[in-house]
């Protein structure tokens, strides 16, 4: 390694710093390869996998708000639901091409997210939880009670989704759903990763750590809130649209409070502020839930509750950060001993 390339030099030049931040490491590449290889496992439950990707993407969208900007939200399912219903209406009223419908769902969700950000940018702490929760509940009730428009409790009927690219029909084994969800999730992950590792992402983290200082540095803290909300909402909308398209059905449960709570649990288990935390959390939470519920359909809530308590007490910061700490300490010890 030449002296010119030393970390100090890289840190000195801004672009070098961001370039080093956004370099892919071996674990990341292995992680995505491992996800793709799940397809080839014998007897794999592909439908469950595709829903894990969708939940992972959804948890990552919350991570943008909570992990990077430090905004807790108890109403994140609202954006998921908006995406889900937009995709549903597209399929119902003849816009059956899935990819463009997905993009439309993202745009609509992003718009609503941006407005929400404007609304809550001066609110902080517990009040923020209440406002986001309130918005979620209003939307839920609206959908639940407008039976003529949304089908209410019974869900939206008559959704038609074309084969992806005109080639791959959504089949009952979930093969298309698996690849479609994985590829969309990966593309959005790469985009989000680039944004988070950019100066904008750094400014978000700065505002999380010390907003007053960021203001003194001249950073637009309040404006960033609505942008972060728009980004998070677009991702949540995409995951909602993915769910609608892979299941070809949408019901009010897609924007229920339960979903907002579940996604928070998934993110906290996995570890916030890591991008991968949501995916790890979704993998563990959904696999456990499916496995326990199959073994014991009546009492599985007890076991999952117990496991959550165990996970949270052994992995205080979440699974991914704890493993990272252990790994760094192990590397450090090995490096120190001659």
């Amino acid at each position, binding site marked *: 390694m030449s002296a010119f390339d030393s970390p100090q030099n890289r840190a000195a030049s801004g672009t070098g710093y961001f370039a080093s931040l956004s370099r892919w490491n071996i674990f990341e590449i292995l992680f995505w390869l491992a996800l793709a290889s799940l397809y080839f496992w014998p007897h794999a439950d592909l439908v469950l996998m595709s*829903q894990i990707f969708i939940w992972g993407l959804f948890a990552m969208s919350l991570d943008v708000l909570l992990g990077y900007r430090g905004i807790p939200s108890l109403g994140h399912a609202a954006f998921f639901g908006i995406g889900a219903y937009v995709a549903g209406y597209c399929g119902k009223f003849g816009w059956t091409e899935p990819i463009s419908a997905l993009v439309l769902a993202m745009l609509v969700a992003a718009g609503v997210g941006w407005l929400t950000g404007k609304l809550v940018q001066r609110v902080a702490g517990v009040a923020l939880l209440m406002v986001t929760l309130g918005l979620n509940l209003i939307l839920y009730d609206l959908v639940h009670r407008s039976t003529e428009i949304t089908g209410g409790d019974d869900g939206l009927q008559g959704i038609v989704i074309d084969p992806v690219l005109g080639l791959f029909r959504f089949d*009952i084994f979930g093969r298309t759903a698996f690849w479609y969800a994985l590829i969309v999730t990966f593309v959005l992950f790469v985009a989000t990763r680039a944004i988070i590792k950019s100066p904008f992402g750094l400014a978000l983290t700065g505002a999380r750590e010390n907003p007053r200082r960021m203001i003194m540095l001249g950073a637009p803290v309040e404006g960033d809130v609505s942008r972060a909300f728009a980004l998070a909402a677009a991702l949540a909308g995409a995951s909602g649209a993915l769910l609608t398209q892979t299941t070809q059905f949408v019901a009010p449960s897609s924007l229920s409070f339960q979903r907002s709570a579940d996604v928070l649990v998934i993110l906290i288990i996995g570890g916030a502020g890591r991008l991968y935390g949501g995916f790890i959390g979704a993998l563990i939470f959904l696999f456990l839930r499916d496995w326990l519920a199959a073994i014991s*359909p*009546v009492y599985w809530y007890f076991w999952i509750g117990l496991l959550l308590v165990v996970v949270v007490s052994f992995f205080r910061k979440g699974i991914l950060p704890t493993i990272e700490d252990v790994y760094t300490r192990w590397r450090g010890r090995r490096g120190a001993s001659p």
Partner: protein
Amino acid sequence: MRIVCSALAATALTLAGFAAQAQETVKIGILQSFSGITSLGGQQADGAVKLFMKKYGDTAGGKKIELIRRDTTGPNPEVAKRLVQEVVTRERVNLLIGPDYTPNTLAAAPILMEAKVPSFVTGAATTGIIGEKSKYSTRTFFAVPQLCRPLASYAVKNGWKRVYVAVADFAPGHDCEKYFLEALKEANGELAGNVRIPVSNPEFSGYMQRMRDAKADAVFIFMPIGELSIGILRAINDSGLKSTGIKIMGTGDITDETYIDAVGDAAIGTITTGIYSTQHNSPLNKEFVKEWAELNGKQRIGWGALAVYDSMRLTYDALNAQGAGKFDADKFISFVHGRTFESPRGPVTIDKNNGDIIQNIYIRRVDKVDGVLQNVEIESFSNVGFK
């Protein structure tokens, strides 16, 4: 030694051969809600399946019955559809009892059509969800119009011409309201007023006042199963509305046997429509109620249990009719659709063309029988259709 060994091996082989023959199984997926606030449905389904298999054994048509239970967690189409895909593609079930709830049923329908897996709808009542788009489905529950229409003509016939209508403000409530208002018009009744009550608002006193001001002869109520039904009957009693002599009518949900004890004496006199009461007077039902009590103890019998029990009945009959050979979904459906049989609730017919249910609907009044609150049948409408 060697001879003994080979003899043993030969015996083992023959036994294995027998086992392979006898092991021809039919897998039934039981997709019900086993956990959380909706877990009553799962308990009832379990009770019914257990009772049926205890009585009729675990083989039908020479095939062993194997059950695969999965928890739909309530009205959750995302989970329900995934579970249906899972049990159909990986467990390779031959038929399904469930999934429950309308959104779950709708979400599962395309898969069942594509995979040609017969299913029994035991927990969804919305009109029109059975038919062309789900040729392999059979409803053993009921359809909303069956419960919501008959009370209109009954009320008018009894001289309660002015009726106030109160329904829960969600899709099934809107559905029921539509059918009742239609039937009321046909019977030349008069609408004294109507209101939609939010499902997340248990405060009823304001609505009681409105019902009182409307000066109606009777009130018609539709509420979802559970605490809202308990709440509204109590409120009617506590607000003094009941003592004004107004008739309280509704669908059987409000006086469901599984929680009528929680309403208490406030429920007495309520008139409801129902597909089944444990008081139904037939030898078959008396036997059913007795055996249920022996197996399931104090738990009372809900309509879901009955629907599951009848689904098992149809399944066993169809398998017996099919006899040996591989399970054939099309033969199964052509046997079940169009069939008439005697259920503990009375005679039941499965419509030949679309698999929906035709059954007797009973008008019942809540009374105390041997110190226990019961829905006593006072009148019946024969062979009520599902439209």
